[in-house]
């Protein structure tokens, strides 16, 4: 028996083990407090997924009108005009930047001064520092720039293995957006705005942030909570991973190149070894 055939045996054994562990996981999960978020459809999921420009613009509108009152978004304003993002025009980015007031200085007199923002500035913070935020709100709201990559939920065995693989239902990378989407849907108790079904321990410092119809969509998209949740989660994933479009399109070329090279290498290797018994 060769190493390889033993390997298939091992895979068999591992699969059996997986089934046992998966069952025990199910049992364990039932005891856990909060349910897992459900997997949503995202335009940027899968090997060929890309961001939906209009959706990112809607999501940004929600951030600007709602989230930004408490949450920092530590990214430069100019990135909204980058390819593979909301792709605002140069003038829109400039106008947006100018609508913010930024502290600059010191000037020649040694004083700090306020000026209109420029595209190279970062989005201003709602509070001067985390301590001020904590003093005002009881808890400092997290910076949102990486939130969609900094949140995950346990997938358990064997699901987490399939999440990495290029198979139908695999390549699951959007756990963060799903978590954000679930949180926005998790305010299920009308008498307690700080109770969230999906938050570990259920007591979330952020009260229900979004209600239906709260933000206007000029493009006629329905202003439902579900739509809001999807749009803002997409926007936050873009904020955390702004190079996704570029990454996947280059990735496709790289994979095709490597497949061709592998074939050529294989035939070359076979030709070279053709006169050697091995």
């Amino acid at each position: 028996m060769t190493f390889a055939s033993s390997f298939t045996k091992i895979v068999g054994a591992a699969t059996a083990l997986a089934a046992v562990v998966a069952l025990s996981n199910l049992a364990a999960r039932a005891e856990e407090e909060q349910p897992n978020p459900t997997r949503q459809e995202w335009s940027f999921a899968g090997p060929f997924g890309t961001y939906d420009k209009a959706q990112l613009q809607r999501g940004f509108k929600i951030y600007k009108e709602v989230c930004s009152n408490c949450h920092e978004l530590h990214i430069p304003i100019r990135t909204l005009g980058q390819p593979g993002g909301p792709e605002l025009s140069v003038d829109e980015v400039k106008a947006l930047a100018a609508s913010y007031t930024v502290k600059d200085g010191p000037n020649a007199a040694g004083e700090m001064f306020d000026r209109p923002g420029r595209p190279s500035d970062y989005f201003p913070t709602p509070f001067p520092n985390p301590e001020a935020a904590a003093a005002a709100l009881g808890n400092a709201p997290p910076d949102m720039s990486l939130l969609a990559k900094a949140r995950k939920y346990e997938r358990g065995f064997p699901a987490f293995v399939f999440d990495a693989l290029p198979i139908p239902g695999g390549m699951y990378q959007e756990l963060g957006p799903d978590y954000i989407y679930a949180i926005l849907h998790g305010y299920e108790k009308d008498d307690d705005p700080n109770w969230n079904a999906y938050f570990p321990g259920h007591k979330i410092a952020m009260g229900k942030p979004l209600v239906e119809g709260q933000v206007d969509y000029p493009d006629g998209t329905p202003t439902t909570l579900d739509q809001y949740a999807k749009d803002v989660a997409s926007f936050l994933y873009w904020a955390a991973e702004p190079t996704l479009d570029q990454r996947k399109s280059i990735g496709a070329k790289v994979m095709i190149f490597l497949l061709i090279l592998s074939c050529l290498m294989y035939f070359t290797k076979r030709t070279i070894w053709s006169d050697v018994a091995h």
Partner: protein
Amino acid sequence: MSTATTSTDETSRRDFLYISTGAVAAVGAVSVVWPLISQMSPDASTLALASTEVDVASIPVGQIVTVKWRGKPVFIRHRSPEEIKAAVDVDVGSLRDPQADSTRVQKPEWLIVIGICTHLGCIPLGKQGQYDGWFCPCHGSVYDTSGRIRQGPAPRNLDVPPYAFLTDTKVKIG
């Protein structure tokens, strides 16, 4: 005969395979080098660096003020009528880097140049040298009141950055 032909075909088929494999592998190796080179170019934040705005109202006639733009010094010189005259009266054809003063300024009383000697990058000293323009202490380049090279090793005049007067006294450099 036939065996000979076959082996020739076989050989050329092999050669084709080897050459194409090598060529494709080489293309791959070269493409990987590109990100390694490109990463040293200015990044998105540097490219987006904003322009500098300067209020020149407080600069008295005859004074030179140095401001920073893209990490480099920019000289803003409020020229006196004599200095303007000296700059204009020069025979342009006799210069090493022939440029009329009018092509180097937007308003004659304001000369705005990048304060880096075109020789090897030192910062010249203002109001020094034979032409009362700038004098570079490193290798002795002498510039006139239009920032043009007159003596010494520097090959070019001091560069003029892109700028625009937003108002009579407000300049946006960059």
